[in-house]
């Protein structure tokens, strides 16, 4: 069976819109020169202001597991788009792309979330809010 990956936008900090929805300058906390892409399993979701956070266990080639934290949009903004706290669940397999935190920790903006099973709960586009 061919698994089609659906690229889904969490609604911030993606691609050409690195300042999206942050409550301050994106670059105060994240380094747009350090893109991050990980594949793993969601271990925890913090559906809180000013940005949601979710955590992903990532296993490297040697089998060592590292837990990464990713920030998403503010809960209210996501809720207005119909994206509820149930959209991301512990145990979900995801590919997450973003930009690494400036402090070099295993934290990043989580601009793009891709589910393995094709669910499209995060398809709400943020393009209409992208900077010019």
């Amino acid at each position, binding site marked *: 069976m061919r698994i089609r990956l659906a690229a889904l936008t969490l609604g911030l900090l993606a691609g050409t819109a690195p300042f999206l929805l942050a*409550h301050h300058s994106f670059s105060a906390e994240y380094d747009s020169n350090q893109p991050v892409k990980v594949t793993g399993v969601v271990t925890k979701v913090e559906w809180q202001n000013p940005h949601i956070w979710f955590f992903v266990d990532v296993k490297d080639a040697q089998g060592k597991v590292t837990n990464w934290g990713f920030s998403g949009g503010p809960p209210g903004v996501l809720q207005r788009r119909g994206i509820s706290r149930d959209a991301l669940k512990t145990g979900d397999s995801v590919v997450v792309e973003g930009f690494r935190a400036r402090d070099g920790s295993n934290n990043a903006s989580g601009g793009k979330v891709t589910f393995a099973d094709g669910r499209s709960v995060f398809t709400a586009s943020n393009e209409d809010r992208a900077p010019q």
Partner: protein
Amino acid sequence: MLNVTKHTAALAYVIVVVLAVIANAQSKPAAGQIPRTADGKPDFSGFWDNPKEPGSRGPATTFNKEKMAPFVPGGEALFYEPRTGDPRHDEPRAFCMPSGFPSAFLGPYPVQIIQTPQYLVMQTEFMNVTRIIPLDGRPHKTDIEPTFYGEPVGHWDGDTLVIEGRNYKRWSLDDYYYQNPKEYRMHTEALRTTERLRRADADTISYEFTVDDPKIFTKPWSVQWEMKRHAEWAKTGLYEMVCNENNRCEGGKCRDSK
């Protein structure tokens, strides 16, 4: 012959009626089609998208350099106050310090306006900031400490609501999406803002914003924005946004998740 005359008269009557209807429609002021309060003022109440340049699909207003007035001598150094490397200075908003006005009202978040004869209340979902603007044109205070959000006072100029802001603390003068953190922009305590709000149509507020900071600019400069109505946001109202709840990477240092 009589029939022809009758027809001509009937036709003339129809034409007169049609012309009268057209003339009436044209003489009806466009402003008459906008919602008005009981006292006849344009009613700005409702849920609105943040100010944007007309036709923009972007998130926010931008203070484009080309729209600004030239700097006075020394003004540029005040406007682009050099960054120090200390995040508390360089981006205090990353520590949940206030965005100030106008910055807080320019991000991509809904703004709710509630209007009474005495006050206009502007509430933005972003950080739950409220402006309570008296509409009686009272004089600005001369003996108060300057603040992040200043002291707005409104008055009516016909159908235009004019909001004059004074008493601002030296703080960020940003559109929401300044692109280059090295060019973080600030105003001085001499800042005076003038907003001119007009209901251009049932779904649009025409919003002119004027920046007058004589310590930085040689003259006032203005930008033209629009705010678009979103009646559907009334269903849920504004959501709560609390900066300090879980600001995990405050100032660029991320807290451990454990």
